[in-house]
Structures are given as structure tokens and as C-alpha cells.
């Protein structure tokens, strides 16, 4: 029947390529029964040309100017017949003004913001095309993956244990045991799913996997002379396209399938997938940057510009995406919808998310249209939305990010306060009482699950280095050690860097255990950083964004060397999953609203029921009433956590249990291994039920049953 329709036939022809007017929606390139429909927006262009390439060829085989009648409103739409969707690469040439903020350049071919695949870096670190014609090219993707019965796991946010990781770094090191052709790829990660299951986490947060140009930096490592690489990838070149360089099948254009196969198998293993997405800026940089896509399509719409036409730089990366322009916010929303519908992604962490709440002139909005529309979008209804609630323009919104009851936040205050407490700073006990109970001071009208708790992440020291370095050592980044944070709240335990001193090494190890014990018993959502469970080190570099070397790749031999730490973390995760009382959705009420005999949470010090809130105090204990777990819907054991960050041992009097139940010792970081931690459910009875001696800088967790 289709061939009886009048729109089945072309009306125009150029160089043997037949075409007719297209449909303005959906935007992007869509495979239709008789060819491909291309639709692209530009409000200020005076002309547009579709440029077609065959895969692998430097020069185009056809350029088709859009006829005036092919422009519908501000959308150029064309339907091209009989193209080979497998081998087609395409782009656009726009003409228009180059004044007052416009940056049209008809000598440049630009990629489709809605392109589903971007070629140009099909293999990691390999430049496919010369930079002068069209280096990054849009392609079509076949959306025929067989998901079988896969669906979102819909784990409640407060029940997640998130593992932040870098796809390439996870298996690139030869010690990973992954075959060379799969090392550093989605497939390599898929091979390692059994490890993630063994660790016990139930969510991975992948650092950027949208296409980016790892070769974009002109600088070199001042020590080795090697080219610096954009390893982290916070510099998007195509929002809808997965990074081919992260796929063993990238050179076959099958990165989409490979990522889907990974997501499908992670879901089978009970692990959700959150993507770290970068919408605050693009790889086009400032006025000196390359014209790759948005700049050449409609600069004034896609970027925030100052009145003089220069780029606002709230991202610290040269430009700022104009997220609250109606057209741009539509693109961001459709992009996220696409990742959820097509790739079954379970959530997003938004890099420098405060940019998403700025108006077109850069001012913070109280009710940002983009954030509101994402919060109420029907396709995004069940996905996790997590904000890095600050930006590089000085906006810091931890606790005040416009959340619409949906958004969680990377809790930077949790990170800083726990770090300060761990290094025995004075005046931290009161703050710790708030941090361990889900930061109700920050999220009073929201839930504990608004707080993504973390002590380390990709930004900053690894956990090992947090207790091995007082200062950053970023000289290899080629920025004279000026990059990276200075407020690390780290403590080297008295020697900077590696040492053979057994006492210092024992202290560092204990501090690492203390950190994990606190993180994994705190209310809120814990996030671990890849490799911390095996003491990965970056040798004091706290901003390792530009090294595609062993500095960043996870060295799996650490797993054997630090099997005790892995075992400790694994059991802490298991304990958290076994005890609903640690995963309360709602804030504690500090009262006994169920008549169990004691309030949901109570605080203690060296003396039971008498916390010492004074500035000089470095010790705090708290007890969670199991009867109040999950607001009483999932009764659990009682849990008592005591933290002594004083530099001497302290005797802690323990609140008595009110019936025949006894306190059992789950972990004691001050005890020698293997008595530092026990199997979940098989914890030994505490000999003295009235109190215990808590070692210097140690944490104890008891379970009452």
C-alpha cells in the first residue's frame, strides 16, 4: 500500500540522489520505509545543506541544499531516498550571519545534535578523519536490539549502593584478565559483572559515556612528554551517541548494541545503571574552540552569551549550554527520554547541575523550566535524577537545588564533614550527628534519599590517598599544580606519600576502614568510588582527568594485596543490605512514635545517653531502634555505631537492650584482623554488654538481636 502513497516518490534529484520534502519531526535522522528523513533546527540560518559521505571517504559524495519549501518554521526537513543506512555518514552546512553572537560558517560541516552515532573516534585514541573536512560525523543507528523481558529494576533510591566507575579504567589494565580486544570497553565491564556482584553493590554510575574527543588537549605531560588525553570525558561531542571508543565493536558501529548488552546483563545481576551526563557545556569550548555542531547550527540559541556576544563560562570549560531556552531544554529532555527508552538507563547524575537552573542570562532561577519538565516527564517518571548541585560560576546549591520531590544531590557537605571528622578536627561531632542521619538540616522537606553520601569520587583523592597525602601532587597534569581542589581535608598520617612505616600503614588502613564503616552505616545513599575497595592510588594526584595510563587504570593486583579491605567493604555492603534500619526513607523523628520503648534514633557518647557536643569532642555514638526500621514497616535489629576519632582509646558505655536481646559485634576497626569484621548474621556476642574499649581513631558497629 505504501507505494500507492504520493509521498513515496521523490520530487527532486541531485547527482543521482533522489529526495523530497521531509517531515519536521522527529528531529534527527530517522530511517523511514523508503529512505531516511533528516530534520534539523536552526532559527537564524539563512540556508542549510545536507552533506552525505560514504563511510571511510574524506570527501562527500553529495551535497543537497534544502529547497526553500523544505524549511518548515525553523526546521529544515528532507527525505532522501535509497541511502545505505549502514555506511552513511552525514552532516550539515549552514549559512547565516557571523555577527552579534551568531557564528555561522558555511565552510564547516557540522554534526547533528540528535545524531545517534558519531564517528571520528571509532577506536579509542585513533583519529579517523583529517580535522579540516569533517572530523566528527553523524551516523544512523539500528535500534533493533533484542531486550527480551528486560525492564527497569526500580530499586528504591535509599536501598542503592552506588559504585562510581570509569568504563575504560575498570578493565584497561592488563591485570584485569580481560582479553586485549575487550579491555577497557563495555564488553570488558560485562566480563567483570561477577566481581561487582561479589562486592555487593547494586548500582553502577558510569562516568561520561556520551561521545567525546579524548584527543582534544594540545598539552603534554611535562615529565614524560606524552600527549595528555581527555580520559574522564566531561566534554560532550554528541549527546545521543554512546562512545565508540568504549566499545570493542566500535569499529563496526555496534557500540549501541554493546552498551545495551552490558545494561541487560547488569540488570540480570540486579545492578542498576546511572549515567553521568554533561549538559552544562560542550566540547566546542570558547571563542577559540572548534566548530563541531551547536556553534555552527545556532550559536545564540544553544549557548549562553553575554550582551557582547562572548560566551558565559559557568562550566569552567569555556562555554555554557543555554539549558533553559525552550528549544534546548526540549533537546535535553528528549535526549534523556531516548537513553531511558532505547538503552534502559535507570538514572542520571548531572554534572554541574546548577547550570541547568540558570536563566538564559545566567541568573539562577527559583523554578527552572528544564528541571521542572524533567521532574514531571512521564518517560523519566521512575528514573533517578541526581544533581551535582553546584557549578563553576559560584552557584552552590547543596540542600537547596530545585528538587520537585524528585532530585537527589551529591552531598558535598557529607563528604567534607566526614573527612574533617576522620582527621580529628574539633567541632565536628554535631555536624556528624546530622550527616549520619541523612542530613535533615539540608533536606528537611525531602527524604534521606535526597542525600547521595560519598567520601571520595572521581574528583579528588582516592580513599587511599586521602590518608596518604596532605597536599595534591598534580604536576603531571601540566598546569603547574594549579588545577584540582585545595580543600581536600585530607591527612597523610604524618608522612607524605608511600611509606614503609608499619605504624603509619596500620593507621592508614584503619582510617580507610573507618571511612567505609561510617559511609555504609549512614542514612542516605552511599556511593563508593571504583578501586577504593582495593586501595587504588593516584599517587597524590587529585585531578587525574588527563591521564590514559596506569595512574588511572584499575590495577587488579591490588585486590590480592588488599584482600582484607575488599573483604571489609564487601561485608559492610552486605550488612547494609541486611539491615533495613540503615536505609530509612524518611528522616528520623527523634521520638518513639511506635511505642517500642525507645526513640527511632538516640545519640550517645562515652557515657550512654550523654553525647558530648562540645568543640573538643571527637567521639560520637548513636543507636537505631530496629522497631522503627522503614518507619516500622520492616522491623529490624537495633544497631549501635560508635565513632572515636580521638587519638587515644576511650571507654564507651553502651545503652542496654531492653529485653533478652544481646549486643553482637559486627565490626571493630580497632581490632586485629580477622576480628575487625564478621560474617553478617554470625556476629559474636559482645562479652561485656555494658561497655567496650574503643581504640584510638576507631569505629565499632554492634547489632542487637
Amino acid at each position, binding site marked *: 500500500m505504501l507505494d500507492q502513497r504520493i509521498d513515496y516518490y521523490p520530487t527532486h534529484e541531485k547527482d543521482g540522489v533522489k529526495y523530497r520534502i521531509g517531515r519536521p519531526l522527529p528531529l534527527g535522522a530517522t530511517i523511514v520505509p523508503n529512505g531516511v528523513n533528516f530534520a534539523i533546527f536552526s532559527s537564524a540560518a539563512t540556508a542549510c545543506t545536507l552533506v552525505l559521505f560514504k563511510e571511510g571517504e574524506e570527501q562527500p559524495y553529495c551535497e543537497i541544499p534544502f529547497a526553500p519549501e523544505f524549511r518548515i518554521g525553523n526546521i529544515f526537513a528532507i527525505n532522501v531516498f535509497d541511502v545505505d543506512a549502514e555506511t552513511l555518514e552525514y552532516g550539515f552546512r549552514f549559512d547565516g550571519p557571523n555577527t552579534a553572537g551568531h557564528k555561522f560558517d558555511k565552510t564547516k560541516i557540522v554534526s547533528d545534535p540528535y545524531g545517534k552515532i558519531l564517528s571520528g573516534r571509532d577506536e579509542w585514541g585513533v583519529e579517523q578523519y583529517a580535522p579540516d573536512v569533517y572530523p566528527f560525523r553523524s551516523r544512523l543507528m539500528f535500534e533493533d*536490539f533484542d531486550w527480551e523481558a528486560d525492564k527497569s529494576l526500580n530499586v528504591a533510591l535509599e536501598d542503592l549502593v552506588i559504585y562510581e566507575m570509569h568504563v575504560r579504567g575498570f578493565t584497561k589494565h592488563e591485570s584485569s584478565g580481560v582479553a586485549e580486544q575487550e579491555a577497557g570497553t563495555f564488553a570488558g565491564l560485562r566480563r567483570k559483572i561477577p566481581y561487582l556482584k561479589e562486592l555487593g553493590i547494586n548500582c553502577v554510575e558510569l562516568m561520561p559515556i556520551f561521545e567525546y574527543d579524548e584527543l582534544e588537549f594540545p598539552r603534554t605531560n611535562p615529565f614524560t612528554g606524552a600527549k595528555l588525553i581527555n580520559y574522564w570525558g566531561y566534554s560532550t561531542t554528541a549527546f545521543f551517541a554512546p562512545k565508540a571508543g568504549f566499545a570493542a565493536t566500535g569499529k563496526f558501529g555496534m557500540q549501541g548494541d554493546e552498551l545495551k548488552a552490558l545494561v541487560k546483563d547488569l540488570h540480570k545481576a540486579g545492578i542498576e545503571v546511572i549515567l553521568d551526563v554533561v549538559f552544562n557545556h560542550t566540547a566546542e569550548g570558547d571563542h577559540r574552540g572548534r566548530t563541531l555542531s551547536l556553534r555552527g547550527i545556532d550559536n545564540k540559541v544553544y549557548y549562553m552569551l553575554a550582551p557582547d556576544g562572548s560566551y558565559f563560562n559557568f562550566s569552567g570549560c569555556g562555554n555554557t549550554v543555554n539549558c533553559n531556552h525552550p528549544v534546548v531544554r526540549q533537546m535535553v529532555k528528549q535526549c534523556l527520554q531516548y537513553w531511558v527508552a532505547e538503552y534502559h538507563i535507570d538514572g542520571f547524575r548531572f554534572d554541574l547541575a546548577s547550570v541547568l537552573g540558570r536563566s538564559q542570562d545566567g541568573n539562577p532561577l527559583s523554578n527552572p523550566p528544564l528541571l521542572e519538565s524533567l521532574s514531571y516527564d512521564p518517560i523519566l517518571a521512575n528514573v533517578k535524577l541526581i544533581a551535582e548541585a553546584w557549578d563553576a560560576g559560584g552557584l552552590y546549591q547543596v540542600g537547596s537545588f530545585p528538587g520537585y520531590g524528585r532530585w537527589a544531590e551529591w552531598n558535598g557537605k557529607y563528604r567534607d564533614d566526614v573527612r574533617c571528622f576522620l582527621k580529628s578536627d574539633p567541632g565536628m561531632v554535631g555536624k556528624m550527628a546530622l550527616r549520619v542521619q541523612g542530613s535533615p538540616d539540608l533536606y528537611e522537606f525531602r527524604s534521606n534519599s535526597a542525600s547521595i553520601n560519598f567520601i571520595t569520587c572521581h574528583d579528588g583523592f582516592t580513599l587511599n590517598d586521602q590518608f596518604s597525602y596532605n597536599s595534591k601532587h598534580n604536576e603531571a597534569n601540566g598546569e603547574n599544580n594549579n588545577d584540582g581542589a585545595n580543600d581536600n581535608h585530607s591527612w597523610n598520617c604524618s608522612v607524605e606519600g608511600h611509606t614503609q612505616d608499619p605504624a603509619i600503614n596500620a593507621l592508614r588502613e584503619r582510617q580507610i576502614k573507618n571511612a567505609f564503616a561510617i559511609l555504609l552505616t549512614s542514612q542516605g545513599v552511599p556511593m563508593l568510588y571504583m578501586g577504593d575497595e582495593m586501595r587504588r592510588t593516584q599517587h597524590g594526584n587529585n585531578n587525574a582527568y588527563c591521564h590514559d595510563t596506569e595512574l588511572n587504570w584499575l590495577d587488579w593486583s591490588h585486590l590480592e594485596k588488599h584482600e582484607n579491605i575488599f573483604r571489609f567493604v564487601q561485608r559492610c555492603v552486605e550488612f547494609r543490605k541486611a539491615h533495613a534500619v540503615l536505609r530509612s526513607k524518611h528522616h528520623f523523628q527523634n521520638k518513639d512514635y511506635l511505642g517500642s520503648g525507645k526513640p527511632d534514633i538516640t545519640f550517645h557518647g562515652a557515657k550512654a545517653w550523654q553525647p558530648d557536643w562540645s568543640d573538643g569532642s571527637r567521639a560520637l555514638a548513636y543507636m537505631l531502634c530496629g522497631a522503627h526500621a522503614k518507619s516500622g514497616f520492616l522491623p529490624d535489629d537495633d544497631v549501635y555505631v560508635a565513632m572515636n576519632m580521638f587519638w587515644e582509646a576511650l571507654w564507651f558505655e553502651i545503652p542496654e537492650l531492653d529485653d533478652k536481646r544481646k549486643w553482637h559485634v559486627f565490626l571493630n576497626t580497632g581490632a586485629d584482623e580477622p576480628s575487625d569484621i564478621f560474617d553478617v548474621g554470625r556476629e559474636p556476642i559482645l562479652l561485656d554488654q555494658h561497655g567496650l574499649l574503643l581504640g584510638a581513631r576507631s569505629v565499632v558497629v554492634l547489632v542487637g538481636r
Partner: protein
Amino acid sequence: MYALEISTSEHAGIGIVSLVGEIDANTAPVLELELLPIARRYNRIILDLSAVKSVSSVGLRKILMLYRVIKVHDGQILIAGMKDDLRSIMWAAGFLNYFIVAESLQMGLAAFE
């Protein structure tokens, strides 16, 4: 002259497609024409790739297409003589488990029987 030779035969109700050469953008359309009727006619198919030097992304798509067509009538495809690199790519792309795999045509026939 195509760089792919396609021969088809039948053994005990099993459709056998033997390929010699390369499956790429040039040869894949012809392969598709040959494969489609076979996929519709047989419930069990052996695709003998032991003499295939290389398979491009287009070729991979055609093999996947074969699977989709035969799946409609609950059929099975066995791939014989697949090289290691192709097996790795198909695993990475997530569709190796759609197929039965055998070292050779003979072993494939034995597996089906």
C-alpha cells in the same frame, strides 16, 4: 564477480548455507537475497562460516536479520566454523547467545542430530 560465494544445500531437513569469501557492504545485499527464502523455508539452518575471511558490520547485521526471521517460527540457527574474532564481536554486541555454535559443519550436523 562478488567476493563472496554462496552455496546452499539440504541435509535431513536442515538448510545449509556455506559461504566462501568476505561478507561486507558489497556482498551483503546478495547474501540477504539468498538467506531470506531459506530462513522462511527451514526451521533449522546451519551457516557455515569456516571459509569466511572477514565479516563487516553490515554482514553482522545480515546474520542478525537471519535470526530475527527464523525466530518468528521458533527456528534455530547454528553457526559453524566461526573465527575467534567474530565470536568475540558477536559476544560483545550481545547476540552470540542467539545462535548455537559448532567448530565445523560436521560437528554442527551432529549437534542438530
